[in-house]
């Protein structure tokens, strides 16, 4: 299981993970969409060699079209690869042993370095991704322009090629109806909010990803600072909202949380959506010490292991959505 899921991090009760992604491209090579299979494989070889030669981390190579569909989806559910990489046929990913670093190859760009850490530690995530970048650059020539910085396939990534995102759990702000106001404010300062699995994915289980929109004209450190400032404020607001809920509606809140607990502990059939919703309630219950003897990592594990592909991996066979709902309920009962 990935390090960000099982390890504890700072302010882990609200910030689930801190992630930094750097987009890089190899000079004199068309972007992946315009490569044939042989050329794409050459890029994979180049990046793998560069990582093996210079990086202290040891990686395992996953070639997308050589691994079963379910395994691809599991990597996606663990946030180790992106939906686009999982869909494509030319891609690969180098994933570190602790699963904190993944180097996606031939996604939209030749290289996307990702560092993902538990809790609120964006600076460390940036430092990790930066180290990997330096290591790869020892043997790869990047497309870089003195004025525009790192050149990327999409003009929205040019400059630093950096996307930093904090995944936050905001149940109280959502319950008190303040979430849309906050999301709006965030977008006004050059940041954006996405669903749990990135661009275009839906909001589930009160989980939101706060990430930077602007990649040109700000340094990496400034981007990290912006995300940190916005995230800390949102964390504070969430804490306030939690206190208000506790002070004014304690019994109703406890009722909601214990009902969620009751269903999760006893259900025989449960959809992914319902599970995400109830897990969010239980997570809140744990944070507020209403439910004791629970850990962040246990809830993270359940959250990831009950995603569709991970369930099928657990069952060892392809399952219909109905069958998955039964196994999902079983996994949750066992874990809790």
């Amino acid at each position, binding site marked *: 299981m990935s390090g960000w899921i099982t390890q504890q991090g700072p302010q882990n009760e609200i910030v689930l993970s801190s992630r930094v992604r750097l987009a890089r*491209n190899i*000079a*004199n*090579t*068309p*972007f992946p*969409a*315009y490569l044939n299979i042989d050329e794409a494989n050459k890029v994979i070889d180049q990046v793998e060699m560069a990582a093996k030669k210079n990086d202290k981390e040891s990686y395992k190579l996953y070639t997308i079209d050589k691994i079963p569909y379910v395994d691809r989806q599991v990597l996606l559910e663990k946030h180790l690869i992106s939906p686009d990489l999982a869909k494509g046929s030319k891609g690969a990913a180098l994933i570190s042993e602790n699963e904190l670093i993944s180097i996606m190859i031939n996604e*939209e760009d030749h290289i996307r370095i990702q560092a993902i850490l538990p809790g609120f530690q964006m600076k460390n995530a940036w430092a990790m991704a*930066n180290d990997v*970048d*330096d290591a790869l*650059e*020892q043997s790869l*020539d*990047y*497309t*870089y*322009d*003195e*004025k*525009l*910085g*790192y*050149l*990327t*396939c*999409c*003009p*929205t990534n*040019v*400059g*630093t090629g*950096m996307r930093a995102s904090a995944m936050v759990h905001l149940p109280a702000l959502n319950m008190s109806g303040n979430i849309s106001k906050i999301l709006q404010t965030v977008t006004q300062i*050059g940041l954006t909010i996405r669903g749990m699995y990135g*661009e275009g994915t839906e909001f589930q289980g009160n989980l939101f990803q706060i990430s930077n929109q*602007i*990649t*040109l*004209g*700000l*340094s*990496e450190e400034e*981007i990290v600072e912006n995300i940190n400032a916005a995230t800390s404020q949102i964390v504070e607001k969430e804490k306030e909202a939690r206190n208000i809920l506790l002070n004014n509606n304690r019994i109703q809140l406890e009722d909601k949380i214990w009902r969620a607990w009751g269903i999760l502990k006893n259900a025989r059939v449960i959809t992914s959506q319902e599970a995400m919703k109830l897990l969010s309630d239980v997570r809140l219950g744990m944070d507020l010490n209403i439910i004791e003897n629970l850990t962040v990592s246990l809830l993270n594990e359940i959250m990831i292991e009950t995603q569709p592909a991970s369930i099928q991996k657990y069952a060892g066979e392809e399952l219909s959505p109905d069958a998955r709902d039964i196994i999902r309920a079983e996994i949750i009962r066992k874990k809790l």
Partner: protein
Amino acid sequence: MICNECGKRPATVHITKIENGKKTNMHLCEQCALAKGALSMNTGFSINDLLAGMLNTGTPLPIKVDFMDDPSCPVCGMKYSRFRETGRFGCGSCYKSFGDRLTPLFRRIHGNINHTGKIPQRTGGRLKIMREMESLKAELANAVKREEYEKAAEIRDKIRALEKSSGRDE
């Protein structure tokens, strides 16, 4: 409020458009909004459309795009018109090939046109020194302005050392 377009039905769609820093408001009924494509957010709106939209605003496009208006990247063959449709470049050289045409786009997306972040360690050595030199010179000017001559002398020595080392590199 009545729809700006048909002047009959009540306006239920309110659109604020910001173009070149100028704000315009549109109030439309649902039918007119759909007809104008203003509601395309609900019908497969994508980042490509958005980027294409950003490139298309400003000067109106001539109806016929002749060869001269549609340059292509000599390295990968990507046409500018194709980039405008997809919002994706074909290779790193496209940036140079399409040149100044892209500047308004960067400004709209990022509000900026100059990279100030990381410089590649191995290949960016000269650039790194140039940047450092620039910031030292600015510091020096500041120190002189504040009459901090001791500090200014320190900075001057740093600049000299940097000049020496970069001279060796070249």
